């Protein structure tokens, strides 16, 4: 998030798109609802599904999945035409506006309606509502990013914020809500193919030298590595021989599960470190028992760059070990030096010394202050509630021209429905923890698919009956929830359930830059089971 969860309280208008906020980030969702109700902040929701947020919104735009570039460009077009653009901000803080202006001019309301299905008048109202607000915040999640044009969607959001001057102040910003407790931290720590901790790129020799010196090694690679989805492909081709997977479950979480399973089976060695025997661990050659969050100390970094402590509550279960202990012991066993830490606090000291944005983070400060938001560059730095104040990280904010393109796989005669996937309120990701939590499993014990009542009637399927979903990649069976949460032609399935795994169906087509799979759109056929 460019801004903080807390300063959503100061927004006059909140535009939520591609985020089922009350179900996926419930405590942020209710905060937004309260800002709307108690303080009168305008609420615009753009989502193909009638999610809880849509019920409360002042305006609900029901776009066709994957059409986000079109309606976001359309909003900008109206904002520019209505002279609601922040000319001073554009002139002083950004570059590339003229090109964007020219490009969005083609996205007239009728063009946008044709692509996205959003009525012209609604688009206009949304543009005015967002454009006229003194402080407007954009909130999005995977509904924006998990597309072959995901990066373009994000750029369009950023363009919209920049042309209206909605960055660098409280209550504004472009705010992706991160789906996992420490996905922000894992990125910050360099668990990414192209960067060392703190986003110091591996292709810059200066950074490589810095880390080699600090770690007392030579020969760190300057070649960008393989992303999750590319690793899977490389494993299938036999180029990757061995994989070490710590606390992830790609069999359920990656697109086209059958393909993932084949690839993992093709490995010469698969090591999985986890707290349960997940669907991925079942394929492993060696399984190492790690510890849950309750059995170790550490830090998590939340979606608004907020570093907070995790504290050990109970000793490790059985012979399991904290994951940091396992890594250290294995590294030492292999002869690596520099893995003899006494505690996570000591590891954080090393992180702070090498990661400028975390330089001011220490356990002592976290213990005393509760949290620190990065960038936090010195021991005196109080942290940063919102980014880009006065200046962007790169200097001028770069606007990018983005054009609408169809998702990689559109419905056709053979597969006439669009499938979009996601999570529900009661389970988390691949369910390895929530499906073993009795109360959560009781609330939502089995997979399902949301089907519009008219579609259901045509298929002859009633609420609660089993349906078969087929895509070019596989088929699953799940219970139909007949509901107008989804429009005609769209079905939604959560991916939590191993026995009705939505990712058997999904399309592994990737965004060319971010390598993110297109979970939010693929073509399926429905049959009564």
């Amino acid at each position, binding site marked *: 998030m460019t801004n903080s969860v807390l300063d959503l309280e100061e927004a006059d208008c909140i535009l939520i798109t591609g985020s089922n906020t*009350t*179900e996926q980030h*419930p*405590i942020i*969702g*209710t*905060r937004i*609802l*309260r800002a709307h*109700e*108690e303080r009168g902040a305008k609420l615009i929701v753009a989502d193909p599904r009638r999610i*809880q947020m849509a*019920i*409360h919104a002042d305006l609900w735009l029901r776009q066709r999945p994957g059409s986000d570039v079109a309606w976001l460009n359309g909003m900008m077009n109206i904002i520019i035409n209505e002279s609601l653009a922040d000319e001073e901000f554009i002139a002083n803080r950004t570059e590339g506006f003229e090109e964007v202006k020219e490009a969005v001019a083609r996205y007239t309301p009728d063009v946008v309606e044709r692509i996205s299905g959003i009525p012209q008048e609604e688009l206009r109202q949304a543009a005015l509502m967002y454009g006229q607000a003194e402080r407007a915040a954009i909130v999005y999640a995977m509904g924006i990013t998990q597309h072959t044009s995901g990066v373009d969607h994000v750029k369009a959001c950023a363009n919209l914020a920049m042309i209206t001057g909605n960055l660098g102040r409280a209550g504004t910003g472009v705010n992706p809500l991160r789906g996992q407790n420490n996905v922000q931290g894992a990125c910050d720590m360099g668990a990414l193919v192209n960067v060392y901790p703190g986003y110091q790129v591996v292709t810059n020799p200066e950074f490589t030298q810095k880390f080699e010196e600090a770690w007392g090694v030579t020969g760190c690679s300057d070649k960008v590595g393989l992303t999750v989805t590319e690793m899977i492909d490389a494993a299938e081709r036999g180029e990757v021989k061995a994989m070490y997977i710590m606390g992830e479950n790609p069999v359920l979480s990656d697109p086209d599960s059958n393909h993932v399973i084949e690839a993992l089976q093709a490995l010469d060695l698969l090591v999985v470190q986890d707290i349960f025997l997940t669907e991925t661990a079942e394929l492993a050659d060696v399984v190492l028992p790690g510890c849950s969050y309750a059995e170790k100390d550490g830090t998590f970094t939340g979606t608004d760059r907020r570093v907070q402590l995790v504290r050990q509550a109970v000793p490790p279960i059985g012979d399991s070990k904290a994951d940091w202990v396992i890594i250290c012991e294995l590294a030492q066993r292999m002869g690596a030096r520099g893995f003899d830490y006494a505690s996570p606090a000591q590891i954080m000291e090393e992180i702070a010394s090498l990661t400028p944005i975390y330089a001011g983070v220490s356990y002592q400060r976290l*213990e*005393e202050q*509760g949290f620190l938001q990065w960038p936090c560059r010195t021991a005196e730095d109080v942290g940063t509630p919102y980014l880009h104040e006065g200046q962007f990280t790169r200097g001028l904010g770069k606007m990018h021209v983005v054009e609408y393109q169809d998702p990689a796989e559109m419905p056709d005669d053979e597969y006439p429905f669009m499938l979009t996937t996601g999570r*529900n*309120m*009661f389970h988390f990701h691949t369910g390895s923890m929530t499906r073993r939590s009795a*109360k959560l499993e*009781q*609330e*939502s014990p089995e997979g399902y698919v949301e089907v519009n009542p008219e579609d259901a009637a045509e298929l002859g399927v009633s609420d609660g009956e089993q349906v078969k979903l087929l895509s070019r990649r596989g088929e699953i069976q799940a219970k139909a929830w007949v509901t107008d949460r989804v429009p005609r032609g769209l079905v939604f399935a959560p991916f939590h359930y191993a026995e009705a795994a939505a990712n058997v169906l999904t399309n592994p087509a990737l965004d060319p830059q971010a390598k993110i799979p297109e979970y939010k759109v693929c073509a399926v056929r429905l049959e009564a089971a």
Partner: protein
Amino acid sequence: MNRLEALRNAVGELLDKVEGVIALRNKSGHVAPHLFREREELNGLGLSPKYPLPATLRLIQNEYPEAKLGIVCRGCEERGLIEMAKRNQVELGNVTVIGLACTADEAEECRCAKPYPSVLVDAHVGERTEPVPDRVAEELRQKEVAERLSFWRSQFDKCIKCYACRNACPQCFCPECTLEEELWVERGRVPPPFPSFHLIRAMHTAGKCVGCRECELSCPAHIPMTALYALIRQEMGEMFGYEPGVDLEDQPPLVLPMEVEI
């Protein structure tokens, strides 16, 4: 001597006579229920924000039914303990109560009808302050039926079914909760379909709710449900002459059969 010091002294004295005292602990500004066993720990004694300590007593007594324990109780917590004792959820025989009167500000925040304990207390800390009328409940009473409906619909539609209202309630202890029964509240639906979830809960708290407000304080959507419960509590008082949390001997009306002559 301020309230915290007075409380520390009282808990310290009590620690000599019991195995542990349930009170709040303040650690780096974060306050939580704690079982104090040693005087040395008392530097970390905390006052507020309040947590439902009677629920902690129940938890510990489940494991240690014979233990001699102390507990710090505010007015609402004492009322809670009384209702829990009537339903055999806590055993007060081995329990010593240190009463803690709420400040005027705290009473105001909770719209509390009796911001101090007076029934079970063995030791008192703090000055009694005046009761505060529940304006929110009164405003609701003045509304027309249709107005009330739109008010509550907009409130209940914010519900994210976290069950915090039930989880935080010291009076909610059923091993199997009706709110989780598929027959009465469709599982897996957010917000839960009106009127099932919230009105069932209102029914189940009738005759038990002591107005501690823990439900509302832990509601992420800030649904003002205690206003509804307060009105029901008043009605119950008028219908059956029953006021929860006042008298250990007084039996709750929904538990007992009615005298034939009524």
